[in-house]
């Protein structure tokens, strides 16, 4: 099944392996594919609002809105927007670039989407978008914002990676970790778990892994976005403990943008055929 269709009526977090991974480009593609079937909403999280990417200085792709799209934009970004819109809400929380404004595009145009600063605000905005009819809502960026919305049960995430020769090893390791973590079951109420049960609130860093003397039992983690381990540390952990997550958004897809790396080389580096079979390569790339 076309994975894009599977995103319909969900809250989809588009998270990237790094800056300029191609998240917004993917977002534009997904929006085009889903419009018509559902009202779409889009916002971003993280510090935004610059015309140029803050790390690389490259122009940031703007979002192409169509009539009826719901968008969250910063008040300051609206002044020069090529957009005719109606305002649906203005949120009282201030961000560095002004108040977030929820709007509906009244005709096609370009816009720079923006976002709130914390999870509570994000939850409020997503609920507001749904109240105004949004079916599928895309949240561009910031993997650590998934948790709260994941609790709603309709959240999914798309992991977008830009793989280049210089980050081939680290990209493959990061994707294997996300893939492996996504198969860890959700901790269910009343489930009988192997004792002892260790509960790790917040980030799981190497320093918070129970000591070597602890072998066996269950480790309950908040969610996969809180795992800050290397692939090796993660595999060691899996060998020592039964793992569970407190919340778990669905992994909808891996979108891989290869730059100067062949599919063959990348899949060889992954050394995980099941994962390789799940990869969606650059949707803009076509064979002729």
């Amino acid at each position: 099944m076309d994975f894009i269709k599977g995103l319909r009526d969900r809250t989809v977090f588009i998270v990237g392996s790094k800056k300029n991974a191609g998240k917004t480009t993917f977002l534009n593609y997904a929006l085009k594919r889903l419009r018509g079937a559902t009202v779409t909403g889009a916002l971003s999280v993280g510090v935004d609002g610059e015309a140029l990417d803050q790390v690389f200085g490259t122009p940031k792709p703007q979002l192409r809105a169509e009539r009826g799209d719901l968008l969250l934009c910063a008040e300051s970004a609206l002044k020069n927007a090529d957009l005719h819109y109606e305002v649906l809400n203005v949120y009282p929380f201030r961000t560095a670039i002004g108040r977030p404004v929820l709007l509906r595009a009244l005709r096609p145009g370009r816009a720079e989407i923006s976002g709130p600063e914390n999870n509570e605000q994000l939850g409020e905005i997503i609920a507001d978008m749904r109240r105004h009819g949004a079916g599928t809502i895309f949240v561009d960026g910031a993997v650590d914002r998934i948790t709260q919305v994941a609790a709603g049960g309709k959240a999914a995430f798309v992991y977008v990676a830009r793989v280049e020769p210089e980050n081939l090893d680290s990209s493959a390791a990061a994707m294997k970790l996300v893939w492996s973590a996504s198969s860890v079951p959700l901790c269910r109420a009343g489930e009988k778990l192997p004792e002892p049960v260790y509960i790790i609130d917040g980030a799981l860093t190497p320093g918070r892994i129970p000591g070597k003397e602890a072998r066996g039992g269950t480790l309950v983690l908040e969610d996969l976005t809180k795992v800050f381990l290397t692939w090796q540390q993660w595999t060691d952990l899996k060998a020592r403990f039964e793992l569970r997550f407190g919340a778990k958004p669905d992994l909808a897809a891996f979108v891989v943008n290869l730059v100067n790396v062949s599919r063959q080389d990348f899949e060889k580096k992954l050394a995980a055929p099941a994962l390789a079979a799940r990869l969606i390569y650059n949707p803009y790339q076509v064979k002729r």
Partner: protein
Amino acid sequence: MEKLRAFAEFETFYALFKPLTPRGRRYREARPFFTDAAALKTEYDQAAAMGAFLAASRHKADKLRFHLRNIPPLELTPEALGSAPGLFLVRKFLSNTAEIFKLLPAPLRARFGARWASAELLALLDKGGTGEAFHIADAYSPDLAAERAAIAACDKTLKALRDKRLKALRETRGLDFSDRDFLVIEETAAAKLGGAPELFVEPFDGTHVTVKPVYGPDYMEAAAERDRLRAREAELEAAAVKRLAAAAAAEKKEFEAYLAALERIDVAAERARLAAELKLTRPVLRKFHSPLKLQKARFLPLEARLAEAGLKYTPLTASFSRRVNIIYGSNMGGKTVALKTLAFMQLLAQSGFFTPAETFETCLFDGGAFIGGAEMETAGGLSSFGLEMNDFALAHARLKGERLLLVMDEFARTTNSEEAAALLGAILEDLAERPGACAFLATHFSGLRAGKAPASFKMRGFDTAAFNTYFSGKPACGLDEKLRMINKFMRYELLEGGEGGEARDAIKIAGILGVAKAIVRRAQEFMEEKK
């Protein structure tokens, strides 16, 4: 005052007070403490009137809460008003305000100063949208409609040109741009395109290129025309925003009156909600100094904790006609709770709330102070005793010009009993001479020398006979059960008199809490010998 609030666990109640509007929340943060009887009466009158209105119609009560919650924060600066989002907020504010005012009957509107005078401005802003939405509509400028129609025509032309070009590229070059602005193809495949003028090609990586459609001069011309039209539209929108912002700014005075009225309505509605939900009654205010009378006063934080633990709660009934009062009683006999109840009731009453009692008659104080509980803290190098004395000295100094409620719990308990009793006696005598002092002191020291002025009270204490009947032959039990037993047999009633009569429950309580029987027995023997 903060120590008194902490002692009375005022925060557990205040956390339930949740005004819905931005101004209401600001009011909450200010934590007003009323010392003026007329101002406090107004607060009570407003809460009572609002309570009657809300009780009459659940539907109207829900509607009022809905619109209050929808009142946005309002800024009336030129910068805040000079944009569509700023005007959206003005319209949202006005439409919810109008609905709230409409809901209230005329006498209530008059009581809250709710006078609606912005029908014209709201009608003007309503041209910009239906429901919650707002935009700079064509209705605001005849030229806008024409400009937007031209943009729509331009968009149509652009779309037609784009579709035509994409169709041609699909048919002649096999490139499908349907869902994509660009394509990434292999460089070798791109070479076969032979530098087609309808395609723009640039490198993607070492083996691929990015291909974008080139739409041609007609398209560029239409796009440039659209840019020009859009710039003109932006000018017209800015002019319309300016006119609307000026119309809103002209009603600044009205807005300020609405904000003040909404704050009063919001606060009164929230106070009325709490009164209904927690069964609060209006306090009776008398002139200073009048007796403080509590009839079945409930200290809500403890009532809730005991209910959770399945334990019985005894409300406090008492009448304090003198200014200086001493409460004697057993350990765990309820002296502190009696003080907390009194402080809780007074703080609620002077914060504008109704109180949890069948009746609460009181008078107003300029402030309050709590002295005691110092074993929990030390500050600035002072010992707990030093801290208590410092707190007392500060409160005492204020008595020169202020009427103060002084609540003292086990004052000087950390020093030797002889000196502590002497100090307490002297303090009580002094307070009796100060007309601004209204003091309540709980102590387990017996027989304080304080002259005739203070009134003495005693917690009824442990019901030994009932306990012996119940406990005979019962096995030892855990802490929860022990506490349950103390709760069951302790009589938390405040009796007038007592006159320093000694409390004799400490050894019994020690026994219930698990101190060895032999020790308890020996302690009782010592007491007998002393007698």
